[in-house]
């Protein structure tokens, strides 16, 4: 059975290759919008909130993206928050513009905004969208700081 199926898949691949299914693009690196990075997938655990104790020099146990090249938020030192915003910046931007959504809820949870305050906070973020995302070149660390400024302002 396996042998037959193998021959078949072999054929299938031949055809697929022949008709040119190109692999879709997996985003590109960066710290702003459109940096939807799908990191290299080697290593056992690609946790996103690395306990930052420098144990990640080890190649077999790398983390996906890391925020080290993206600057740090002035206000938020929380590594998990930085990681999340970096990897989900585009979805957060959409949710802020809309006024709700899973990524925005997550951000609020990481910012420890209590659930009963979130609706008001989200409305405020929506109203201040242009302060949070002033240009298309905005970087992830700025976004976090802008969000915190709007919430506290």
């Amino acid at each position, binding site marked *: 059975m396996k042998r037959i199926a193998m021959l078949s898949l072999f054929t299938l*691949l031949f055809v697929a290759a022949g008709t040119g299914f190109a692999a879709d693009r997996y985003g590109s690196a960066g710290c702003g919008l*459109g940096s939807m990075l799908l990191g290299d997938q080697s290593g056992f655990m690609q946790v996103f909130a690395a306990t930052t104790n420098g144990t990640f020099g080890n190649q077999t146990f790398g983390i996906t993206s890391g925020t080290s090249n993206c600057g740090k938020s002035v206000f938020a030192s929380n590594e998990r928050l930085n990681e999340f915003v970096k990897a989900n910046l585009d979805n957060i931007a959409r949710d802020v513009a809309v006024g709700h959504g899973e990524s925005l809820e997550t951000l609020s949870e990481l910012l420890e905004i209590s659930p009963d305050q979130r609706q008001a906070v989200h409305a405020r973020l929506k109203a201040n969208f242009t302060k949070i*995302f002033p240009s298309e070149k905005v970087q992830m660390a700025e976004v976090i700081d802008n969000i915190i400024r709007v919430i506290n302002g």
Partner: protein
Amino acid sequence: MGGAISLFIGVLLLIPVTAKADEPSKLSIILKTAEDAQLSRERYWSLLLHYKPSWSGGLRSLIDDPKFFLSPEGKENPRAELEATIRAFFNSTGKGDEHPRCRFPARYAWLKERLDMADADFPAVDCKEFKNKRDGDVKPKALVLVFPSAYMNNPSSMFGHTMLRIDSAYQSRLLSHVVNYGADVDDSGILYPFKGIFGYYKGYFKIFPYYERIREYGDIEQRDMWEYQLNLSEEEVQKMFLHLWELKDIYSYYYFFDENCSYNLLFLLEAARPSQRLTDGSLWVIPVDTLRMVNNSGMTKGVTFRPALSTRISHIASFLDRQSRRKALEIAGGKSEPTLVEDNGQDRIRVLDLAAEITQYQYNKGIQTKEEYQKRYLSILTERSKTPLVAEDLDKIPVPSPPEEGHFSGRFGLGMGIKNGTPFQEIRYRPSYHSLMDPDRGYVEGSQVVFAETAVRYYSGGPVRLERLNVIDIVSLAPRDDFFSPRSWKVNTGLLQKMGRSEEERLTYQLNPGVGLAYKNTAFGLFYTLAEMNLLAGGLFRDNYALGIGLQAGVLKKLTDTWNVYLTAESTFFEIGDSFQEHRFSAVQSVTLSPNNNLALSLSWQKTFNNESTETKCSWHYYF
């Protein structure tokens, strides 16, 4: 008995202050206790070591990595492995996380419990990295089985996929991690399927942030995802994690059809709840069958649907007229400004939302550059942020039938009919998976993946003969519309009875790939046309083979939820190897009687080498 062991060891441990010379005897007593209790024969030990009965009658672990075994005989000898494990817990010189106690925390926890011992009874080790990962990063609390639906443009994903999500105390599921078992494919050459089926690749367990998998499956591959919450307690989930850690950087050879992504996850579920027997065997493990098995085992308690980006786009678009849809496309393509959306009501919100999603889609596809994307996406969202706040999503996406409600993968069929005036009876069987005319509830519409379909036919007065062997028969009809422009394709290879210059039929090999376009509308349903190539081989032809090119067109229409009609016409012109034409027309309708029962009626006409034939057939299909 546990009490006796504990008393025994307790007495034993009162002596550790005495000379070091006593240490070996302490170990030997523990070893003897384990031996007397026959711990190596217990189910949990078998489960942790992935032992399964071997061909020779003994046991053999499915794990292939020598690092996983502490005894050189460990792969085939549970007893030797148990002894070596206990010895290593006491004697290993490994430091910190390299110590066997840290490398194999599930074995350690189980042996400690079964021997009624405490941490203090073992030499002290600090498993720092393990604790950091478990208690700092992942914080396992609950488990969810995740099923991304089939992805037709990748042979390894046609049957869907399964992953295990580990939820923490966070409310947001985006902060969960997900466990994936997959082959480490370092090349993507033509031998890839060959290697995949014969176990050439090494399979590894890996852990990812969940949002990253959502991006890959939902945003890039456009696969809807199903999330099945499991009713495992936090304690059970912790047990699972202990075993998962043991499998870190450990490989097993990956076999596409059985030791695959789906099968290997089941070991983790068994480690969590050993009373479940999920890995006990099946030759053919398809992700959706795994899903059914877990569902039937009573481990699930609710399901969530996570639509892919393309599903969201189609859904928003379904509320808009053609003009508004065009507007959204123009905005996404940079040909119109989002500020120019006139309507100020809900449709304005929809157009902007649609434009934002399309921009993302096009960027993911490489249609837009990063600069174009950043500029357009932000200007759309800026405009969107000015619309009034609506508390909930405007248009909730309806949840389609979940995959486990679809028909079973195996199919058995009985048919009878008349061909050119001669009555016949037919038996058909295929182990997997889904064909265009099967009930489509729970499956991707317009997709067919059939392996090893065999039909045997008996004509009145003649011998029983092989009518057809569809080794592989895959069709992917993906409709194009304003937003998406996928290619449709098919490939069929196998044996079939064919007429040549005379009316006598002979068994002939066929390889028939094709590629083309499909569209869909409410009046006609799904319609398509494919350009194809056909290679035939057998004694019918001048040079024992014939190579031709042709065209196929078809319409697949769903008349009601349980009644489908499918019309196809095909013409092929053979020029190489032999010279002739073949024309085919067929009309099939199928009626679903129950999820696993259906009736099909087909009429077909064919002309090859100027020989015409007609066939009428009625068949009943049972899925199991």
